C-alpha cells in the first residue's frame, strides 16, 4: 500500500526557475471535475517563522481603500484577491512566541515543558476530514523533515503529523504508483482488508444475535462504523483504479539549483502544491516556511548586506539584535525583506492558480490561501498577522484591511469562517465566537455549499 520510492525509473532534470511558470493544462482534471457535482474546495496555509516586521506589514489605515503596506507590494496587482487581518489572537496572548509553530493552527495553550507537550487538532486537519476523499488526505510540508516545530498539522488527537521538506518524497507520495506491480500490490491490500472485514462482520452479527437489546445496539454502532470504513476502502480503490494522472512528469522540477535558497525552496514546494491541486490528489496543504532559529538561508546574507546589518544566524535576526528597536533597525529591515519575499512567493502562487480555469472561474476562486505567523514586537500570542487570499467563489469578500482591538478577536473565528466557507459542517473551532461576517460577500455571489 505504501508507494515505495523508486527514483531511478523516474528521470528528472535540472531546470531553471523561469521554466516552471506554466504547467501544461491537464486533461484529466477537466474530466474529473466534469463528473463531480461541484468544484473541489482547497486550502493551503503558510506559516511565517520568527515574527514579521510590523513596520512594513501593517497597513496604516483600514477598510477597502487601505494603503498597501511595503511588504505586500508584490501582491499589489492581486489587491482584490486578498485581505489583511490584524490583531487576531490566541488565548488572549497568554503564550510566548517560541511555541507558535505548534499552536498557530490549533489555538491551543500548549505547555513547552519537555515531554509534556499537549496539543489539539489543527484547523487544516478539520478541513481534511471533510474535503476528501482524495489520494492524500492532506499534504504537510516544511523547511525540514519532522514533527514538533517543523510541522503545522496535528491530528484529531493533537498528535503531530510529520512534515516533509524533500521535493522528491512529496512527488513520490503525491500520486498513485505508476508501476503496475505496485498498483496490484495496493489493490491486493485493499482486497485483503475487505476480506478481513467481511469475516469480522460475520462474527459480530453472530454474536449480536445472542445479546440483549442494549448490547445489540452497541454492536450495531460498530457494524455501522465498519460499513463506513468499507465505503472508504471503496473510495480509495476508485482513486487507485483511476490511476496516475497523465502529465509531463519530466517537466516537474525536483532539484533546487542553489543549495540553501529560501525562495527557491518555497517556490518549488508551491509548484508541487499547484500540481497537487490541479490533479486533485489532495485538497489540503500546510507549509511551514522556515524555523524560528534557522535554517540560515543564503538570502539572509544578501539582505543583511543590503540593509547594513551584521551577517548572523536567522534566530538572531528574529531577535533584531540589540539597541535601536525602531523602523530603522537593520535586523528588522532584513525581516522586512524576507516578508516581502514571502509575499512575492504568494503572489506567484496566486498567479498560477488564477491561470488555471475551473467551474465558472479559476482555481484561485475555489482555493483558500492563508499566510500568517507571529509578530516580532511582543512575540506573543496577542496578535497573529494574517493574510487571507483566494476563495472568492466560496463567498470571501477581499480587498480590505480588517483590524480589531488587541486581545478581542480570536484567530479561531477566522479559522471557523474558513472551514465553514470550505463547506465543512462545523459550528465552532477552539475559541471561536462566530464567523467573521466582514469577510463574507453577499449570498448571491457565492455558489453555496
Amino acid at each position, binding site marked *: 500500500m*505504501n508507494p*515505495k*520510492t523508486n527514483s531511478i525509473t523516474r528521470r528528472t532534470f535540472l531546470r531553471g526557475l523561469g521554466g516552471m511558470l506554466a504547467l501544461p493544462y491537464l486533461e484529466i482534471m477537466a474530466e474529473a471535475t466534469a463528473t463531480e457535482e461541484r468544484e473541489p474546495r482547497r486550502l493551503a496555509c503558510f506559516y511565517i517563522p520568527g515574527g514579521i516586521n510590523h513596520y512594513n506589514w501593517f497597513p496604516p489605515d483600514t477598510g477597502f481603500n487601505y494603503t498597501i503596506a511595503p511588504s505586500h507590494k508584490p501582491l499589489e496587482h492581486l489587491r482584490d484577491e486578498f485581505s489583511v487581518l490584524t490583531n487576531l489572537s490566541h488565548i488572549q496572548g*497568554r*503564550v*510566548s512566541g517560541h*511555541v507558535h509553530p505548534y499552536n498557530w493552527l490549533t489555538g491551543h495553550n500548549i*505547555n*513547552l*515543558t*519537555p*515531554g*509534556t507537550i499537549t496539543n489539539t487538532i489543527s484547523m487544516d486537519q478539520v478541513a481534511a476530514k*471533510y474535503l476528501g476523499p482524495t489520494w492524500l488526505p492532506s499534504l504537510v510540508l516544511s523547511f525540514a*523533515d*519532522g*514533527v*514538533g516545530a517543523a510541522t503545522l498539522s496535528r491530528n*484529531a*488527537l493533537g*498528535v*503531530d503529523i*510529520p512534515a*516533509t521538506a*524533500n521535493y522528491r*518524497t512529496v512527488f513520490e507520495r503525491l500520486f498513485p504508483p505508476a508501476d503496475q506491480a505496485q498498483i496490484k500490490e495496493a489493490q*491486493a491490500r485493499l*482486497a*485483503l*482488508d475487505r*476480506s*478481513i*472485514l467481511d*469475516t*469480522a462482520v*460475520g*462474527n*459480530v452479527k*453472530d*454474536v*449480536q444475535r445472542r445479546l*440483549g*437489546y*442494549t*448490547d*445489540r*445496539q*452497541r*454492536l*450495531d*454502532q*460498530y457494524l*455501522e*462504523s465498519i*460499513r*463506513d*470504513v468499507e*465505503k*472508504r476502502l471503496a473510495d480509495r480503490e476508485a482513486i487507485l483504479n483511476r490511476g496516475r494522472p497523465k502529465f509531463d512528469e519530466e517537466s516537474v522540477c525536483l532539484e533546487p539549483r542553489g543549495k540553501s535558497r529560501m525562495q527557491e525552496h518555497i517556490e518549488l514546494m508551491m509548484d508541487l502544491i499547484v500540481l497537487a491541486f490541479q490533479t486533485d490528489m489532495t485538497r489540503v496543504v500546510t507549509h511551514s516556511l522556515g524555523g524560528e532559529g534557522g535554517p540560515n538561508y543564503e538570502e539572509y546574507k544578501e539582505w543583511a548586506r543590503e540593509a547594513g546589518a551584521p551577517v548572523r544566524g536567522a534566530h538572531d535576526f528574529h531577535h533584531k539584535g540589540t539597541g535601536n528597536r525602531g523602523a530603522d533597525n537593520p535586523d528588522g529591515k532584513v525581516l522586512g525583506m524576507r516578508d516581502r519575499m514571502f509575499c512575492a512567493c504568494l503572489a506567484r502562487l496566486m498567479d498560477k492558480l488564477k491561470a488555471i480555469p475551473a467551474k465558472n472561474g479559476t482555481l484561485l476562486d475555489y482555493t483558500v490561501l492563508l499566510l500568517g505567523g507571529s509578530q516580532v514586537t511582543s512575540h506573543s500570542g496577542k496578535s497573529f498577522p494574517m493574510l487571507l487570499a483566494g476563495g472568492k467563489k466560496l463567498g470571501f469578500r477581499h480587498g480590505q484591511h480588517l483590524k480589531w482591538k488587541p486581545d478581542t478577536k480570536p484567530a479561531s473565528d477566522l479559522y471557523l469562517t474558513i472551514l465553514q466557507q470550505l463547506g465543512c*459542517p462545523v459550528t465552532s473551532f477552539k475559541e471561536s465566537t462566530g464567523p467573521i461576517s466582514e469577510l463574507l460577500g453577499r449570498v448571491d455571489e457565492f455558489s453555496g455549499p
Partner: protein
Amino acid sequence: MKISPRWRLACILAFLLLNVSSALSADDSFEKVVTPFLKRYCYACHGPEKQTAGIRYDRITSYQAGDRDLWTMVHARLAAGEMPPRSRPQPTEAERKSVLTWIEEHQRAQDASGTRRLNRREVAAALRDVTGLGIDYASAFPGDGTVAGFDTGADGLQDTADGVAQWMQVTRRAVDGIRFLEPAAGKVFSADLRSVKDARQAFDPWKANGAQVRGQAIVRPGLGMLLQPRAPGESDTLNFSIPVATSQQGVLRLTLVVSAMKPMNGLPNSRLWVEVGGKDIDYCEVTGTFEKPQQLVYEVQLDDLAIQPKGINIQLSNRVEVPYAVPGFANEDRSNPKDPPPGGTGLFRPAFDRKVLPPEKQPVPFVVLQRIDIEPNYVAAWPPKEWKAESSDRKDDAACAQRLLTLWMERAWRRPVTAAEQEPFLALYHKLRQQALSFDAALRGSFQAVLLSAPFRYLAAPDHPDATIAQHAIASRLSFLLLGAPPDDELRRLAGAGKLRDPAVLDAQVDRLLADPRRQGFIRPFVTQWLELEQPITIAQDHLQKQDFRFARYLKASMREETIAYITQLLVENRPARELIVSDWTMMNDILAIHYGYPPLEGGYLRKVKLRPDDPRGGGILGHAGIQSMLCWMGDNWVIYRGAWTLRHILDHPPPPPPLEVPELNPSDAQNKGKTFRELLKQHQQDARCAVCHQTIDPVGFAFQNFDLSGRWRDVEYESYTRNELDGRVVWVGVGKTRPVDTIGRLPRGEEFKTFAEFKQLIVKEYQTDLVRGLMKRLIVYATGRKPDVADMKTLTAIMEEYQTKGYPLRDLLKAVIRSRIFLGQ
C-alpha cells in the same frame, strides 16, 4: 455522504425503539401509577413551567432504557424522603411505595446488559498480551468518552468510522509485528561498551553500516559509556541515528543495559530519558549497580515516528531532577534569603570546575551505559517464549495453521473457542492461501480478523447464558478491573474449572492481584479518574530562582504520585476509610521531602513516612499538595474549585454545573481589587442564580485556604495576589498587607468549623457514610461499566451496613462488591 451514516443509525435506533415500545405498550402502568404521582407532586418544579436542576417529567410517557439513571436518582430521592421538598405537599406512604415498586420492576426487566467495548487502555493491554510485544498501541487510538468520569463506562464507549478505521490500522500493525515460519530478519546494531577501550572506536562497526553517533561519549574502560550531566538540573545526551528508510514501518527494538554511578554520598538518582524518533518512550530512575545492572527493553512502532533522511533518531539523556546540597561546594541559589521557601529548605547548585575534577569526583550522579542493542526491523517470533506453547514441528500445513489460530483466538477472546466459532477465520486463512499469500501473510490476515471480531473487542456480561462464557467473563471483568489487562494464567485456570463464583476463591484472587505490582493497572486509572488527577498541577514561582522551574516537572509528577501511592497503601493494608481523610503518615520521596520541608530522603520511589506531630496538614488526601495545587490551575477562584471538588468526590454531594449565563467571578477586576475572597463571594451570592449552589460550595472551600498555589502550608495570606502565567510557568506574588488565613466555613448539613483540622474531624465524624458511599458508587461504575441501579444501591447499602462497625476497611469493601451480584450478575 457525510450525514447519511448518522441518519442510517438514527433510523435503526428509531426502529429498535419503536419495537421495544410497542412490545411494552400493553403495559399501561406508567399512566396509571406514575403520571398521576408526577403530576401532583413533581410537575410544579420539574414540568412545563419550571425545570429545576434541568429535570422535566411531563414528557416522559413510559420506562425507557435510556432513562435508567434518572429513575435510579428518583428512587433514591423518593425513598430517602428528600423529594418532594418538605415545604411542598407530601405523598402518602402507599403512593410513594407504588412508584418505588414500579421503578424497581421496570429497571429489573430492562436492565440485563453488561457487555461493553474495551477502552483505549484495555485494548492496548489486550494487544500487548496477545502479541507479546511491549508496544504502546494506545497512542494511536482516539480517547474514549466517559461515564461519571470513568473511561470504563459502557455508554461512553461509542464507535465512529474514524475510530474503527484507526482500529483496523492498529490491529494490522499488531499482526505485522509477529512471524511464524519466516526467519528473523534485519540488521542488529549492538555494542558492548564495557569492553571498549577507546570511545572513538566503540561504534565503528555501526558507522560502517551507516549509523551516526553524537554526544560526549566518554568511555571508562571496564565500566561502560558515561552519560554525565555538567550540573544538577542539566542533562547529558547521547544520540544515535540508525539508518532506516523514511517509509519504513514496523517495530524497532531497543535494549539497554544501564547502571548508576554516584561519586559521593548524598547525591540523588539519575533519570534516564529515552526518546525514539522524537517521541518520549520512557523516563525511569536508574538505580542498578555495575554488578546488577538494569536491563531496559523497548519496542516502538515506527509508523507514527518522525524518520529523518539520515534515519531514526534515538536519544538517551541523563537528567537529575532533584535539587541537592553537597558538602564542600558552594550553594549557588541566589534566592532572597529573607524569603525562604516554606519548610526552610534551600536549593543547592554546587559550583565546581569540571576541568579540574575527573568524572569520579564530580558532584553529579551519572548513568553508565554498559550495552546497547538496536534492531530497527524487529519481527517477534510468535507465540512468545513465556507462553511455553508448543513450537515443534512447525511447518507450512493446514494443521499447523489451525493450531496457531486456536492459540491466538483463545488468547484474544479470553475464553475457549468452539470449532464452529473458529470456522470462518480458518476459512479466511484458506481463502488467502489460494490467493497466493504466504503461510505467515495469510495467517496474519486471519489473526487480524480475530482482532476485529466481537469477542475480542467486547467484554461479555458475567450473566451470559453459556456457563463457560460466563465464567470467563467473570475472569475478564476481574482482571480488567484489578490489572487493567486480560486474565492471567491462574484466572484462566480458575474460570476453566468453573470456580469464579466461589466467594473464597474470589477473595483469594483479590488478595493475590492487589499484592502484585500490576495492581497499578487498577489503582492508577481508578484514582486518577475518581479524583480528577489529570488536571495540571501549578507550581508557583514566588521566591525561588530558575532552579525551581527546572526541577518542577519532577516535583509535579511526584505530587500526583503521592495521592496514588497513598491510596494504594490504604488498599493493600486494608486500612479503614477514615484514613482517606485523617492519618499520621503519608507517602514521600526525595523531592516531596524538600517540598514539605521534611528531612532529606534518598531516591525517587515513594515510601511510607510518619508525619511530624506538629505538621498542620496532617495525613489524608485532602492535605496532599498535588490535590490542593491542581485545584488552583484554572485561575484565582480556588475557594470555589476546591469546594466543588470536595463536594463531588469526598462528600458525595455533587453540585450541579454552573448555569451558562452567569458571569465568572474575577478577583482581578478593578472594582474587586483589595477585597477579601469572602467579601467577593458574598457579592457573588447576591445573585440568586449563583446563591443556590454557592451557599454550599464556598463555605466548604474555605477549609483549604491554608494551602497556597503550590499546595504548601501557609499561615498568612496577602491582601491580593498578582498572577502571571506563561508557558505553564506561574509567577505568583503577594501584594499589600498580610493577614492570618481565613478558614471559617460550613459543611453541607450545617456543621461549622474554624480550622482545617476541625474540618477533617467533622468529615470523619459526620460524613463517613457519604464518603464511603460516594467511593463505592464510583467503584461500581468503574468495575461494571454502569452506574448503580436501584437494586445495586440496595446491595451496596447492605454491604455498607455490614462493614460499618469495622470502620469500612477498604480492601474488604472492594472484596464485598466483587462477591456481590453487582459484580457477578444475577
